């Protein structure tokens, strides 16, 4: 098979090229540990990818170079177009979609390898790894499509709930595994099976895994999305790694596993930040909040404020912490928020951002939005480092966040969000909460913070409210 331009070289030459590519990937990820080196790291990583693909193309005989070049061009053009045209606010669905494509490609490669291998006979190793790659890749592809569709508002809530959905999930997962077992047993015991006899088993596996993937992600939504996106990211890597076993290709195994590990760590960080187990995010539903209490809690204790009043408070403050949430992303308020922060800074106020790890719809969502609006990354503080500073903070401005600043997580053991680490904004001298209404967040429970004596509500759309604050501030300076 090795009849490409460089096909006369020994196989170890190709392996060496893959080793260099793997080093590039590892160094690229290592450089991601700091924003200053991260851009370089991304370039190094892409260089590794280029090298790995180039070496493969040059080493092996390509029967139809024109077809290959055309498909590379089409994929490259679509990928570049998506990357260039996307708004930062649409980033979660785009990242979700890209995850899916990687997984889908792995499924197809494993399938194609099975088709081609029939003539040589199917080894046990090949069918086993192909079955795993097929399941993981397909679940990633269809799960990602549903996730991206939900994030883009194209897919609504699941009509099938609770136990019925779990039973269906189990049924289709078992179906995929059985089809995989059939594939393995058939080739292992019957020896060289003709194409027509095993092929349906693989596509049956793909079909069952597809339905399982859809059923898995369909009921999950809202604030649980960061977990799902990180998990699908991990699975796209694992799909590539198992496809590496199918093809006996070290580059796929190493690179795919690195991504699998990265995504899995992010998944667990996201789960910890919500104090929930992965299984409860995937298969459980949140405990029902007590919505009857809501009016009692808020009755007579809500203080409403105006942009002008908030402006005066900000003017008198020495230290301000801004806490953004998903509402900021929805309203695309990041530029107005950054402008306000700049104005305050120019006036000698110490401004920082307190960012909860699961604020938004994907890991690091708020950070990416604020970076787009030119906020210095030194000013974006993590939960652990910003919490102790709230007691020395004059004003906390919460915009578009709810559950991540809910004191019930610390105080009420029966609360659905009990034990979740939250931003302890109530420790500050005064708190401004900018929200459209008193409606509950994703957890469906009321937030006692809104009724606190030192909390005032600034009702309105995040972008409009922040713009009003900027205008009010400019008028007085």
């Amino acid at each position, binding site marked *: 098979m090795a009849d490409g331009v460089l096909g006369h070289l020994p196989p170890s030459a190709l392996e060496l090229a893959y080793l260099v590519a793997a080093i590039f990937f590892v160094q690229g990820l290592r450089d991601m540990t700091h924003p200053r080196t991260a851009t370089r790291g991304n370039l190094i990583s892409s260089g590794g990818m280029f090298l790995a693909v180039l070496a493969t193309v040059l080493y*092996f005989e390509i029967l139809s170079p024109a077809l290959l070049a055309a498909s590379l061009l089409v994929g490259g053009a679509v990928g570049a177009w998506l990357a260039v045209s996307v708004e930062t606010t649409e980033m979660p669905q*785009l990242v979700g979609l890209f*995850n899916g494509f990687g997984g889908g490609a792995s499924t197809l490669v494993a399938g194609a390898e099975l088709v081609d291998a029939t003539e040589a006979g199917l080894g046990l190793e090949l069918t086993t790894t192909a079955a795993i790659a097929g399941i993981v890749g397909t679940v990633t592809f269809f799960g990602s499509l549903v996730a991206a569709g939900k994030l883009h508002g194209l897919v609504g809530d699941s009509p099938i709930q609770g136990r019925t959905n779990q039973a269906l999930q189990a049924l289709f997962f078992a179906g995929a595994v059985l089809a995989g077992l059939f594939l393995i047993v058939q080739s292992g015991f019957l020896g060289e099976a003709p194409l027509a006899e095993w092929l349906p088993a693989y596509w049956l596996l793909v079909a069952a895994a597809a339905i399982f993937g859809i059923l898995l992600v369909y009921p999950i939504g809202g604030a649980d999305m960061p977990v799902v996106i990180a998990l699908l990211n991990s699975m796209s890597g694992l799909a590539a790694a198992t496809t590496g076993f199918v093809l006996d290709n070290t580059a796929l195994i190493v690179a795919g596993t*690195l991504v699998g590990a990265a995504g899995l760590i992010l998944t667990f960080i996201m789960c910890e930040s919500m104090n929930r187990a992965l299984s409860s995010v995937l298969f459980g539903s949140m405990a029902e909040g007590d919505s009857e209490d809501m009016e009692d809690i808020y009755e007579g204790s809500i203080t409403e404020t105006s942009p002008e009043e908030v402006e005066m408070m900000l003017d008198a403050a020495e230290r301000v912490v801004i806490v953004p949430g998903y509402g900021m992303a929805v309203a695309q308020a990041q530029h107005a928020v950054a402008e306000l922060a700049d104005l305050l800074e120019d006036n000698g106020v110490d401004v920082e951002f307190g960012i909860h790890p699961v604020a938004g719809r994907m*890991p690091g969502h708020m950070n990416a939005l604020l*970076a787009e609006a030119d906020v*210095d990354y030194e000013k974006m503080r993590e939960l652990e480092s910003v919490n102790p500073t709230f007691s020395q903070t004059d004003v906390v401005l919460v915009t578009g966040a709810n559950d991540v600043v809910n004191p019930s997580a610390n105080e009420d053991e029966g609360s659905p969000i009990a034990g979740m680490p939250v931003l302890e904004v109530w420790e500050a001298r005064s708190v401004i909460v900018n929200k459209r209404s008193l409606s509950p967040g994703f957890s469906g429970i009321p937030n006692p913070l809104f009724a606190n004596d030192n909390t005032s509500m600034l009702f309105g759309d995040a972008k409009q409210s922040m713009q009003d604050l900027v205008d009010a501030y400019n008028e007085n300076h």
Partner: protein
Amino acid sequence: MSLVTNLTLFVLAAFLGYEIITKIPTNLHTPLMSGANAISGITLIGSVLVAGSGETTLATVLGVLAVVMATINVVGGYLVSHFMLSQFNRGGR
């Protein structure tokens, strides 16, 4: 190469990935994810192999589809990460 050698690579790469990724700050989680996502497009190598040297028409068709999907993943993933990271560096003028 033997299955055991491949498994060895898999396990070592998993540990290496764990060690590197735990050091990455939350600030960079989104670009990390899209960058890692692009790396998972390494499946492009496999796609190129089956698309370019597929022995049957079915394998070639599957391979071409796989190449298109994997290339979207690779090119899109790296570009998106690049744009995001350049925004991080622009901050704090």
